[in-house]
């Protein structure tokens, strides 16, 4: 028992720093950190990895017999905890579950960019005569951030985007009808903790039903509408098809 205690007393710091150094290096080398952070944070993480490497070298350089304290085991276990959760988060990204928790209803639909319209047209496509005059032109590939940042640029145009499907939101059904779907992407400022959903409403005839959280490609005519004093982004006359999860699920 005392041998184990002696071993831990001498080695726990170098082992702890080695575990962190190894994990951070691997995240950086394989660009896996972008599953949690925006790409520019690679530099910051690089500095962190360098510092942990320094700790490791200093720790190895001054290994000597210390008095064993059981509290050190607790400290080590706590400092190692994020590594276990990092391991569990491999290949996982925020999905419909996180969307449910983070969506703020109308606020998540509101574009950031300036846009003024007095268009109070009903959301029912059958009551909207413009849809029948809409030319079938080649859709422009965009993402939800593009639409939110410059809504007036895309107003009335055919656009195509990739996002995750959400179709069980009671709020959306109540406000916009049962056939309205939501397609969203998480927008990350620094890390996934501050990720917030950007979303568009999708309407169309006979939209196929996919399971919750399916990655889809949507093509439709973009429009910003006003409802109850709020603005919302909408894609009309849409078609939806299943697609592969993009290499980077988040928008930055």
């Amino acid at each position, binding site marked *: 028992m005392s041998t184990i205690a002696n071993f831990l007393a001498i080695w726990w*710091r170098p082992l*702890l*720093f080695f575990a962190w150094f190894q994990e951070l290096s691997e*995240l950086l080398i394989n660009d896996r*950190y972008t*599953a*949690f*952070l925006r790409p520019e*944070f690679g530099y*910051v*993480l690089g*500095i*962190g990895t360098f*510092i*942990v490497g*320094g*700790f490791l*070298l*200093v*720790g190895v*350089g*001054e290994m000597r017999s*210390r008095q064993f304290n059981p*509290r050190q085991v*607790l*400290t080590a*276990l*706590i*400092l190692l*905890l*994020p590594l*276990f*959760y*990092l391991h*569990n*988060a491999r290949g*996982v*990204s*925020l*999905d419909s*579950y*996180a969307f*449910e*928790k*983070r*969506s*703020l*209803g109308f*606020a*998540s639909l*509101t574009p*950031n960019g300036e846009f003024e319209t007095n268009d109070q047209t009903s959301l029912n496509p059958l009551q909207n005569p413009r849809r029948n005059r809409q030319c079938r032109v080649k859709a422009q590939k965009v993402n939800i951030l593009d639409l939110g940042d410059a809504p007036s640029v895309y107003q009335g145009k055919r656009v195509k985007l990739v996002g995750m499907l959400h179709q069980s939101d009671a709020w959306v059904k109540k406000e916009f009808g049962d056939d309205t779907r939501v397609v969203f992407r998480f927008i990350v*400022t*620094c*890390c*996934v*903790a*501050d990720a*917030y959903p950007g979303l568009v409403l999708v309407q169309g005839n006979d939209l196929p039903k996919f399971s919750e959280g399916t990655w889809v490609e949507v093509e439709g005519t973009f429009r910003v509408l006003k409802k109850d004093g*709020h603005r919302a982004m909408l894609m009309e006359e849409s078609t939806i098809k299943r697609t592969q999860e993009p290499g980077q699920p988040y928008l930055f």
Partner: protein
Amino acid sequence: MMNTSTVAPGTKARSPQRQAGLILLVLFVVFAYGILAVAPDSTSIQTLSVVFAGIMLEAMPMMLFGALVGGLIETFISRERMTRILPKKGTITIIFAAGMGVLFPVCECAVVPVVRRLLGKGLPASAAIAYLLGGPIVNPIVGVSTALAYKFDWQVAGMRLGLGYLIAVTVAFIMGRIFDKRKLLHQDILDNVTVAFITGRELDLEKKRNADVSDEADKECIQGNQTARSDACDCGCELDFTNASFRTRVVAAFRHAAEDFVSVGHYLVIGAFIAALAQTYIDRKVFLDITEHPVLPSLAMMLLAVLLNLCSEADAFIAASFRGLMPFQAQMAFMLVGPMFDLKLLLMYQGVFRKRAIVTLAGLILVAVFVAVLGISFFGEQLK
């Protein structure tokens, strides 16, 4: 007086409080590892894993950087030089320290280890609080990110930085009035402050007499000085680096930084984990149900800031996402509270302050922010 024959230097008595703390740590470890072991593939645990890992990967390099800066301060800036740099009047030091983030922008994770070392170098405790609270808000990066989040509305950014500065100065000033150094600072920091007088170049008896340190701590460190020469961090004693080479100082800086990382890092992990739990299981729409009330939205957003533990450089984007749903003053409350007081900071402060001081500090911050928010409501039309 401490009986050194029965209690070895550096050994702390097992008080009931300390034992309770130990039990809580054990419970935390069992819970955190337990839920991961029981249901690693459940949606919520996977979301928790992503969010927890994200918070840690964002905060950890900042904290490591802060720890290294603290270590460099320890080995490159002598106590005498620090004394020369600081203004002679305490009030001016507070005013200066609260705005130091403009020159040395740091986030809240990096600032704690830096402040630990600055305190050891003789920075007055109230000035340290001013930097601790002001640094993460009153800095150019936060100013720009806030303006960006609010569509380049520099009024919002200016208001955030201005109010943050005022709150930092006010709270620091009041804390300095309420607590003396001995009641404010953690014992490890006090030991460090004490020993600086003994192993530093200048043994100023006049200053020592005036210092708020205990005789027991002095004696303990004098007795442990032999050890201190070979291991500065374990007993909190400072090495004399005046004639040391650059390489020696850098190695010692890394050693100090590693010590700080271990001392404060586990608080960061616990805080980040609790924040990740809150982010995973709390529905943000809940906070929208009280928007009609004149005061509740601000209180709710303050609570949300405490729970979410967002970085001060990113939180403005979350606050801005509540535009049209929460009143402006509630969004401002969110942006003011987060960088000064959230769950991980609450835990990290335990590496700097005593518990009673932390409770008072938290109370003062919340009250000051609330008063500021009421001010915005009152003068709202003129300001916006």
